[in-house]
């Protein structure tokens, strides 16, 4: 018993470890997290796959066997005991019972015994009257179902574990060890898998998955075993006709449904059914569940925007999600590899202003959370359009993930394109915001970027800025410059050009570094303000230059609203350009078109142990309730003649559980017992008086 308890505790601890340590991840994740030493130690202890570890299963097996043995040993005795009335308790041991009573009765013992038996029967006991030498014993019992409860509950545990074992991956493992099956570790097509990698079509127990793109068909599923997989042929062929996702008005998915066509392999019959998350399909002993969904090979078209050097022609690439294509480089050498990781046609985001609520009075706070709980939140959520995730692997082999939204999203009052970057999958995406121009596109921004990268255009912008600032300072257009003015202008021009240079190569952090190294501390704040104004002004001129070169009309100064928007654009563009200096790739790709193909992921199982487990569950529930709410009690009443006409009745009661309830029940029974013969009004008083009185009566 104590050993079993220690084993149970080990199981508990192991289970807890299994919930805290992520299970079944690639070994590299663990090495990253714990370091090589600990990762290897944990791996040896099989902590990364605890529930299938050999020692875990051995302990479980031991516990099941021990429970089974305990059950087999004790159950017959229990049943026998539950059925027996324990008639062999001797009257002499009555005094030993803590719950006892005695009463006198008159008349023959048999009649009295019958009365007792009737009373106990009415109270709910099963009664047996046993005449003995001098006494009559009325033995009663109730609540024998309690023992059955114990038997049911513990048998249930054994049955559930055995059923669970049948449905675990043990049968698969047995086939690997003894059936000559070998899991496939390399990538290969299902048709190429050798017989040692295929399970039998009559495999009685398996849990497999199948990914089907829309329109796809398969007669095989894949069983994952450790690091490899085995092919499980199915007795039917499964075709996905359509996969659909329904959405709520909030944009969250409300239903996943796959319309499938099943073709029986033997008879060729077909039928169509819809499989939903809580509505699986069962056919020929195999149950098909809607497990998840994935991309089924959508084709995407992207436009690439180069970020290095001067403006390059944008180039268009096409591919399929999941595929890797080469990025054409400058000399025909690939500049890197592009993998389309995920396409999301719908992105529902909550764009309401979070936080920044004005402080409210307590009353308003309370009022805000009362009322109906049904707030229509559909206004807060919006579908911001498709997005594409892709991975770039540069020539050095460095991989970076990107997540770009196809359409501009209005944030903080201005539409911006979001370009997400994450250096590794463990980190979240961080987004760069590129403002959308007047045509809701990226063209003007790219023009500006190219201009920023072109030294000639920078110089020109700096010159124009210097001239404009001279004019702003009161200089008159057309007049020749005074030497001081010329000098001042040149200084301004030089500063502007320098600022643009630093900004172009290192962004705003570069400007900050420049200031910190060239300006004494107390003047830093003022110098920063001056530089920023200088930069913004120069950028404005650069923009004008870029627009002119790109064939766009200059921005008119008439419309103040338009001016404000253009101002905002410029500010956002400067911020974006600064961030771009840190962008880890020389190019970014924007989704320009796609054709989505969805795929449904099904779980297919054959679970022979399921019925055993369900039976076990029923027994367990019944057993537990029986153990608590059917209380076993026993009552014995010995009736003995002590004189001609009267006798003494001794009652004793017991229960395996002596609780408060039992005490109260005993009290109640005792009171009833004492009044059972009360018509004769006999109490346990001295015998002489009784007989005297009775004689008088006669």
């Amino acid at each position: 018993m104590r050993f079993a308890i220690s084993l149970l505790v080990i199981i508990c601890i192991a289970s807890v470890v299994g919930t805290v340590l992520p299970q079944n991840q690639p070994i590299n994740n663990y090495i990253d997290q714990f370091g090589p030493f600990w990762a290897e130690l944990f791996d040896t202890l099989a902590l990364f796959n605890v529930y299938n570890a050999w020692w875990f299963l051995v302990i479980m097996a031991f516990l099941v066997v021990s429970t089974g043995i305990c059950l087999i040993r004790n159950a017959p005795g229990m049943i026998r005991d539950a059925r027996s009335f324990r008639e062999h308790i001797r009257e002499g041991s009555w005094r030993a019972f803590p719950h006892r009573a005695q009463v006198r009765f008159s008349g023959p013992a048999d009649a009295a015994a019958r009365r007792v038996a009737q009373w106990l029967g009415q109270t709910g006991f099963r009664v047996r009257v046993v005449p003995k030498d001098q006494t009559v014993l009325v033995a009663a019992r109730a609540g024998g179902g309690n023992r059955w409860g114990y038997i049911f509950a513990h048998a249930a545990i054994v049955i559930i574990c055995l059923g669970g074992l049948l449905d675990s991956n043990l049968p698969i493992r047995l086939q690997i060890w003894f059936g000559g099956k070998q899991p496939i570790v390399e990538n290969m097509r299902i048709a190429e898998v050798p017989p040692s990698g295929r399970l039998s079509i009559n495999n009685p127990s398996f849990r497999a998955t199948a990914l089907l793109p829309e329109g796809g068909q398969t007669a095989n599923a894949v069983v994952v075993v450790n690091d490899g997989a085995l092919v499980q042929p199915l007795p039917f062929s499964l075709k996905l006709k359509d996969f659909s996702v329904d959405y709520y008005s909030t944009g969250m998915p409300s239903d996943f449904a796959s319309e499938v066509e099943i073709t029986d392999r033997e008879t060729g019959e077909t039928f169509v059914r819809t499989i939903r998350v809580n509505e699986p399909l069962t056919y020929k002993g195999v149950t098909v569940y809607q497990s998840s969904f994935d991309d089924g090979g959508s084709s995407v078209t992207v436009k690439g925007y180069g970020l290095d050097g001067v403006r390059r022609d944008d180039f268009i690439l096409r591919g399929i999600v999941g595929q890797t294509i080469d990025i054409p480089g400058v000399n025909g050498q690939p500049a890197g590899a592009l993998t389309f990781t995920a396409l999301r046609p719908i992105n529902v985001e909550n764009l309401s202003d979070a936080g920044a609520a004005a402080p409210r009075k307590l009353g308003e706070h309370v009022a805000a959370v009362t009322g109906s709980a049904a707030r229509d939140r559909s206004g807060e959520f919006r579908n911001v359009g498709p997005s594409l995730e892709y991975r770039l692997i540069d020539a050095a082999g460095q991989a970076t993930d990107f997540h770009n939204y196809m359409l501009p999203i209005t944030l903080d009052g201005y539409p911006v394109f979001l370009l997400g970057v994450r250096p590794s999958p463990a980190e979240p995406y961080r987004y760069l915001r590129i403002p959308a121009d007047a045509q809701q596109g990226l063209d003007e921004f790219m023009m500006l970027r190219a201009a920023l990268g072109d030294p000639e255009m920078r110089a020109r912008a700096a010159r124009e800025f210097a001239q404009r600032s001279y004019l702003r300072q009161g200089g008159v257009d057309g007049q020749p410059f005074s030497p001081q003015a010329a000098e001042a202008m040149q200084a301004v021009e030089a500063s502007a050009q320098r600022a643009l240079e630093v900004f172009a190569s290192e962004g705003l952090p570069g400007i900050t570094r420049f200031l910190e190294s060239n300006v004494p501390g107390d003047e830093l704040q003022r110098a920063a303000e001056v530089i920023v104004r200088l930069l913004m002004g120069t950028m404005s001129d650069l923009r004008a230059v870029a627009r002119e070169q790109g064939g766009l009309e200059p921005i008119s100064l008439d419309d103040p609203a338009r001016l404000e928007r253009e101002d905002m654009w410029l500010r956002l563009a400067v911020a974006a350009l600064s961030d771009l200096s840190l962008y880890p790739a020389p190019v970014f790709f924007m989704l320009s078109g796609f054709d989505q193909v969805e795929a449904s992921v099904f779980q297919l199982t054959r679970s022979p142990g399921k019925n055993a487990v369900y039976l076990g569950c029923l027994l367990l529930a019944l057993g537990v309730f029986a153990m608590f709410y059917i209380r076993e009690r026993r009552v014995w009443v010995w009736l003995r003649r002590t004189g001609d006409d009267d006798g003494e009745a001794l009652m004793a009661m017991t229960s395996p559980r002596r609780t408060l309830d039992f005490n109260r029940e005993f009290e109640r029974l005792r009171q009833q017992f004492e009044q059972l013969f009360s018509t004769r009004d006999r109490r346990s008083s001295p015998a002489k008086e009784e007989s005297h009185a009775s004689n008088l009566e006669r």
Partner: protein
Amino acid sequence: MQATSNDEAWTDADVIAPRRRFDWTDAVFLVALIIGAGYALMRGSAVMDFYDRAILIGAVPVLAWLAWLWRPLRRLMIALACSAGLALTLYAGDLANADQAFLLRYLLSSQSAIMWMCALFVLATVCYWIGLIARSDTALWLGTSLTWAAVFAGFTGLLVRWHESHLLGPDIGYIPVSNLYEVIILFALVTAVFYLYYEQRYATRALGGFVLLVVTAAVGFLLWYTFAREAYQIMPLVPALKSWWMKLHVPANFIGYGTFSLAAMVAFAYLVKSHGNTRSWKKLIPLFVLGVLLVAEPMVFRTEGLSAYWMMYFGVGALLTGGILAARRPLAERLPSLEVLDDIMYKAIAVGFAFFTVATILGALWAAEAWGAYWQWDPKETWALIVWLNYAAWLHMRLVKGLRGAIGAYWALIGLLITGFAFLGVNMFLSGLHSYGEL
């Protein structure tokens, strides 16, 4: 035979008297239930599948049996029918009426009712403690009445919330036990109802303050969740939860959680009483630490820093624990006997364990339907197993080895820590099929 039909003034002697007969009032109630169920079937058959209807029909005998088992439940159900029915009528199919109709706005709409429930529970706790310390029967009676009022308000809130979810959209309606917000309310209500039952059965109001401590803690969490996270808003169900299984699995689970918490609080009272004459406060340290740990448990599950609210919550909780221990002598005198406390602990854990078993089984059956595997060692499933094993061990120790007394009480308190982690911690910390995400 003695008269035992009146279950109001049950005394010690006749607790296990034969149940009162099924009389005409029970028959009328049964008929009313049948009519109500029939009406609901007619109105709602469009959105109910076969199993939903079976559950609705099955609810009739279950509710009738509950009403016969404990008459105050019948009164509660009738009152709830009135309040929820009134709310339905006032809504008249339009959610905007929540801001127009006076009764809806201030009393009957789901959030208003739930806020009333919170206030009433807090008041009830205060009354119980005043009654306990000052030995005032009036205050204790007030405590009971306010608890009943809170239970009434809370269930009204949940029922009206159910209706509001249907008003929100044709496919959005669902029974309000689907997310953390809703189940915290359910937890508080189940614990309170079981407490009221034991209060009447054992004819003692002394435990009200203790049990309502955990209910007030739940209310505290609920209020924070409402104001800081606006979690009260009805969110449509994710596809995995759209199933009739939820109507059975979740309530059964919360009967388990509620009674386990009740048992833990009674265990706390047991230990206070058993330490009533302990002079050395070194012996009280384990109890104090355990109490403080329990107070701190919900805070541990927050992922951001600690806000002022939580610091105050912890401070108040620690003070209360220390205060109760400091006042152990007078409290011990006012608490019922150790045997009674022990009995309540056992009863509560027994019923909780039975329903927890059923709930875990239902969870496994649901998982088999939804995901194809009835047991996947998902963190929530695993922790449910651990809670189950913990209380199975407790019950084994008691029934087979006869373990009573202080060790059982400490174990029941520690059990609450484990239950709390299985309830909240798994969803917050560990990802898996049951993840609620961050708080």
